[in-house]
């Protein structure tokens, strides 16, 4: 040996995009912020309390699970924070402390960590928690009851409950444009349609979500709702109404494209997105629940591994 200098050995390739899971999650959080901030602006301290508690609890559960399972500490990848944020955004501003504690526990522990952490969850963790709440503590997230004390000078009746109970005629009590601008009752971060849309477009342009899913999801909703509507215009609301209410836009950009529980191949992505969209309208129009987003996406999560068998031939 002529001179000894330590060289770094490694396997090819020696370049990398520089991307990381942390960067991705931080971008997801940034994209969700406009809608979240709108919620805080509208409801003030209570909304801020729900969101910060939710993010904090989610990270805490993650940390506790890391320690119990003797795995590397993973809160630095911001995945738990994002799950906490989206979960909080789906709740009403009046959500009690214990619901957040239990909900984030279900999301992080039952929805994610017991499967092995990030990348191993077969279902969207946020939706696992929401489904549990919907089934067990329905009243807590009944937006009409929860937000009864708020009056912002616009129709505070939860739009999806209105059409569910009174048919398509109820739509005339709302103005689509103001619904889109966030003038409606609902989850803290789920009502500000334009904010969610901007966040979603940002994520698509930056390549951080599977845009095929978002697009087919929205199309699935639009087309199904349209078919219902032309079939019976008295009973079923117009398609755009479905797009701007409930968890639709949150679902399209922040829930349905969740990496681990959604497909990776083109055709499966389209089937998955469109399928969830169709199911949402089915549940809303003829099912038992007011909003079908949570269950529709979960059902598609279950079917996801099957879809991904449809893939192009190798070589």
């Amino acid at each position, binding site marked *: 040996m002529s001179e000894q200098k330590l060289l770094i*050995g490694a396997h090819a390739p020696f370049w990398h995009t520089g991307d990381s899971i942390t960067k991705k999650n931080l971008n997801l959080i940034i994209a969700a912020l406009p809608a979240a901030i709108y919620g805080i602006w509208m409801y003030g301290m209570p909304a801020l309390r729900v969101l910060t508690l939710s993010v904090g609890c989610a990270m805490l559960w993650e940390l506790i699970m890391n320690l119990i399972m003797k795995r590397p500490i993973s809160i630095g990848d911001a995945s738990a924070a994002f799950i906490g944020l989206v979960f909080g955004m789906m709740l009403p501003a009046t959500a009690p402390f214990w619901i957040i504690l239990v909900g984030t526990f279900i999301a992080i522990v039952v929805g994610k960590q017991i499967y092995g952490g990030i990348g191993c969850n077969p279902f969207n963790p946020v939706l696992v928690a929401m489904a549990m709440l919907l089934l067990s503590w329905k009243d807590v997230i009944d937006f009409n009851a929860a937000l009864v004390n708020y009056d912002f000078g616009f129709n505070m009746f939860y739009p999806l409950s209105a059409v569910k109970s009174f048919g398509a005629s109820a739509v005339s009590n709302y103005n689509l444009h103001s619904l889109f601008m966030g003038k409606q009752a609902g989850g803290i971060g789920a009502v500000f349609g334009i904010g969610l849309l901007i966040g979603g477009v940002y994520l698509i342009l930056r390549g951080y979500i599977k845009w095929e899913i978002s697009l087919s999801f929205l199309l699935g909703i639009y087309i199904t709702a349209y078919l219902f509507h032309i079939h019976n215009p008295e009973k079923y609301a117009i398609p755009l109404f479905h797009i701007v209410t409930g968890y639709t836009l949150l679902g399209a950009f922040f829930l349905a494209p969740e990496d681990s529980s959604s497909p990776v191949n083109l055709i499966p992505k389209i089937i998955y997105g469109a399928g969830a969209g169709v199911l949402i309208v089915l549940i809303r129009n003829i099912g038992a629940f007011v909003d079908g987003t949570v269950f529709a996406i979960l059902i598609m999560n279950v079917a996801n591994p099957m879809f991904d068998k449809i893939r192009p031939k190798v070589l």
Partner: protein
Amino acid sequence: MFKRPFFKLIKPRFRYASLKDEVSVTEISLPDKAILLLEKSEVRPSELQGYIGKRIKTGQIINLRETDLVSPVTGVVLKISQYTGYLNVSYYALHIQIEEDEIEAPSEDYIPYSLPGIKNLKLLFGFNPPINHAIVMAVDTDLLVTTNQVCFKNRLDHIKNGISFITQRAKIGNISFVLFPELIKYAEELECKYHILKSIYPNSLPKLIVKDILKKHIPAGKEPEDMGVAFLSSEAVANMGVFYRGEWSFDKFITFIDKDYSITHIKARIGTPIHHILSQLGIEIEQGDRIIFGGPMRGKTIYSLDTPIDYETDAIFIQDSSEIISYSDTHCINCGECIKVCPVNVPVNMLVRLLENGLFEEAAKQYGLLSCIECGLCSYVCIARIPVFQYIMLGKYELSKMGE
């Protein structure tokens, strides 16, 4: 390094480096000591022992068990040491004290095992099945590298003779060239058949050429040679031309890529240790840098500054320690980026799950492990920073061990 752009709607598209201007080639002088590598599987140590202390001449043929060593230098054999390379291949390393060249010309009917640019020249002679189509690569197989393009442009006369070598000596009539559009005029000068390749990585990888240009299907795990197609670098063909005229050529053309990505084309004798090239070019290596033989996507790091230039060392790429991005042991998050970039539709996200758990046979059967053409793009884009390409090569290596 090409980082991801801020907006990223489409998958990354890498262009190969191309030659615009005339290139000058810097000649590296002979080192004091050269090192020749011989694969252990091809020689017995006893065969080599006898040469210690002896003087060998440039062009002298030393017959060994499975191969011949044609010495690229003149000098005295000092000692024999051992060296382990990529995929656990082990070598004997002959250390030679260099003296002034004394050349033994090749005999009329001798065919060497290697020439600069081609490690296994015997491929053209008596391979089973016989090679009936030779494809000459005037393109390079990694980014930033332009060695073959330089050889094609600067050594056309030798290449002409090389074609005669292939048709006359190897009796292969079907020869065609593969090149990027910029080099068409040189191909026309040669009056040969040629295919034009779009200059987008990884188009120039042999298996993709077979698929996209020859429109033939390669079964998983098979190589182009198994279908009678041999890929030859233009440098190899140029050196066949020199040899056809009755002379030796032991100089290897190399694209040298410095830390700041400045490019120098150099010509160095086979066996020249890397530290000699670095000192000739006046380049300092710091602790923690990488020296890569090859390009950024498919090269191999070396761990010793004594490592010599070998017959297929097309490029030397020095990577600064600050550019190194380390891999991680996170799970695949199923983001699908690798699926978008893989040129042959390998379901990489499923593949890594199996490879991480050592399920190599299943990976080959169900998820196309053996169809991977080794471009490295999946690792490049992996957001979880999984060393996907490394897992793939490990999988292939383990499978080949099982097959033995």
